[in-house]
């Protein structure tokens, strides 16, 4: 009976072709193979976000009057609501962390070189989207920390030259952070960003399948042909071990370090001390904090924003600026840049949590 249903599905959905594709997919085996798992890890964690996010949607209310209370309701009244919520909050952070590992490892392995430039660009777009997901989602519980972190974040956006003030009003739904901001962020977080992300993700995954896995130049230069491992079952099984480990980690975090409720947002209370954005914005925040208030007659913050913007541009255009073969002095320079970026971001993220004056 089951066999006949399976046969029917095979025929109508063309499962045979998909199975062929999967069975043909090969993964290069070398000393950097470890880094290949991180794209899948990011995807797995994104899947967790979608599932837990949909579940939260069933009880969450996106108005200033009810948001905090609905989150408290989920945490205290809904069966396992505490678990779903804590997993969603933790997995968001783990996903962005995995995305950063994926991005940096792809950069260092020069996976962005020809013909994979579009894969790199779509990947950077996805990274930007995940930061937007994080920023918009953070406000939704409508607690003091979230409120003021959003205020600081949108203030900085407002400082961008030319488009800043427009961006600030666009993000906030007005001049100040109000219920209108919450509604808007909710719209971004559950509709607009998912729609865009799904499309870009589709493009990104398609491109990865089309071009296959990139092999780092040093490995290619070894001379001998690179051994391959079949995707199914070898790579996939290993992928699943990683995913299960992540799932276990999430369960541990949700139970031992549950995400707190905080205090309900009150715009008329002075901002609590030590307001900072989530860690993935930390290095930008720390950079701006450390700049002097004026440099060569211009506002320090403005210089910082422009600087970060330019750095981002350079990073984005790496496939076109680096040596197209990924070899030679220019390639070595870019590898150095990559290391510098990793070190800078790591150090500056840690500095945010060091405490004391910046």
């Amino acid at each position, binding site marked *: 009976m089951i066999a006949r249903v399976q046969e029917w599905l095979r025929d109508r959905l063309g499962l045979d072709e998909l199975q062929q594709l999967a069975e043909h997919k090969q993964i290069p*085996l070398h000393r950097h193979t470890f880094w290949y798992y991180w794209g899948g890890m990011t995807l797995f964690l994104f899947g967790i976000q979608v599932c837990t996010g949909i579940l939260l949607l069933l009880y969450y209310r996106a108005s200033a009057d009810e948001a905090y209370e609905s989150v408290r309701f989920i*945490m*205290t*009244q809904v069966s396992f609501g*505490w*678990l779903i919520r804590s997993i969603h909050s933790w997995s968001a952070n783990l996903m962005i962390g995995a995305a950063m590992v994926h991005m940096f490892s792809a950069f260092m392995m020069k996976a962005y070189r020809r013909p994979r430039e579009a894969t790199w660009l779509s990947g950077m777009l996805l990274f930007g989207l995940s930061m937007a997901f994080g920023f918009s989602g953070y406000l939704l519980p409508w607690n003091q920390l979230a409120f003021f972190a959003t205020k600081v974040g949108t203030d900085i956006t407002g400082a961008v030259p030319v488009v800043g003030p427009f961006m600030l009003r666009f993000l906030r739904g007005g001049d100040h952070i109000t219920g209108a901001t919450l509604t808007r962020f909710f719209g971004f977080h559950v509709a607009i960003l998912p729609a865009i992300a799904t499309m870009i993700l589709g493009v990104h995954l398609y491109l990865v399948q089309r071009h296959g896995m990139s092999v780092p130049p040093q490995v290619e230069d070894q001379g001998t042909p690179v*051994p*391959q*491992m*079949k995707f199914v*079952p*070898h790579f996939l*099984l*290993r992928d*699943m*071990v990683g995913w*299960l*480990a992540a*799932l*276990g980690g999430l*369960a*541990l975090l*949700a*139970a*031992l370090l*549950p995400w*707190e*409720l905080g205090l309900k947002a009150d715009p008329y209370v002075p901002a609590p001390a030590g307001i900072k954005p989530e860690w993935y914005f930390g290095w930008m925040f720390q950079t701006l904090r450390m700049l002097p208030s004026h440099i060569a007659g211009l506002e320090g913050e403005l210089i910082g924003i422009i600087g970060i913007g330019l750095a981002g541009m350079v990073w984005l255009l790496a496939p076109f600026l680096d040596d197209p073969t990924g070899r030679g002095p220019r390639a070595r320079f870019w590898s150095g840049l990559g290391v510098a970026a990793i070190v800078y971001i790591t150090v500056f993220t840690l500095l945010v949590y060091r405490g004391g004056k910046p």
Partner: protein
Amino acid sequence: MSAPRLIAVTGVLLLAFSGLVYAAPADSLSGIARAAQNSCLDCHRRSDQARVSAPTAHWLEDIHAVRGLGCVGCHGGDATDSDLSAMDPDKGFRGKPGRDEIAELCAKCHADAAYMKRFNPRPYVFSMAEFRTSVHCKKIAEGDKKVATCTNCHGVHGILTPKDPSSPVFHRNVPLTCSKCHNSEYMKGRTVPTNQFALYRNSVHGKALLERDDASAPACNDCHGNHGAVPPNTRDISIVCANCHGREGELFLASKVRLAFDRMGKRGCVTCHGNHDVQKPTDAMLSTGPGGTCVGCHEPGSAGERGAHAIVTGFAGLKASIGVADSLLKLAEFRGMETTQARTALRESQDRLVAVRAAIHSFDEHTVAAVVAEGNEFATQARTAGISALRDWRNRRIGMGLSLLVILATIGLLIARIRGIAPR
């Protein structure tokens, strides 16, 4: 200058002066007061002598001026006469009344209900009979010059209504006004106590009224009366306090302690709480330790002491139960567990605690015990709910532990599978 010439010059000056006054432009101040021609004001205002011009300084703000009453109303004389002949006794001029005459003078209008009603449909009608019961009136009748009469408290020639915050008899200003005489300097040589204001300022009533502007707090006149000021005598005190502290007063007046106090000549309320320096009562008063009020009278081993002990134990027990439940719930909340139902029960319990502090004034252990029992029941409910919340929290960790085991097991099996597969 010779005497006749002096008189002539004075006369000419006076003529010219009155002519000037007659032709002078209307004053912009207080239309009502000026409409009734007031030669007294005109003349006295222009005098160089402070003694003569002083009454005019604030006259136009005086409530009497505002209501259209002139100087003549109290002092007699002729306000239309701009000559010194205005102050003719034949025209009713009385001049400055003696201290013992002032009350009668004010009462002439203020005790006349029909007259007062012309200005206010619900007037305060002064009672001369009431004033005669006061120490102030009695002492004035004896010839004592240093005792208050109407003008000492209400002012004179610039009297404001008691509702006006600048008035010396405005609620908040009363203690200061009374203390103008009731202090050690002024009262030197008398046997009357003089520390009342200092004590009052330090009391819960004084701080409420003077520092926090809480108009519900009593000033001197709220307990001592206004125009019939006497120190409230023994029998009256608890009735005075019960005017505001209704529940406590009601319970006390029905209690055995009140009967005992009557027998012993002790004063209710004041004996335990003090009068002018009454402080916010503390829970230490409801104990058998330092600060405990009951043991101040009840000897160890007496029935009273046993009763007090029972009450104190019940109260302390309830406080302790609430404390235990509260810290349990705080722990549960800190761990992110739901405690609303439990908190509702706990607040009922805290209500009973407040009720005990009032119920104690019955000085009956059964009354207090009933309230304590209710409180304990609610505290137990809260505690049970708190324990259940913490148990849930522990169960979560167990659940997590189990799921981790399953995950680890699966990972282990997968790795074994990976190893078992032929080399890739």
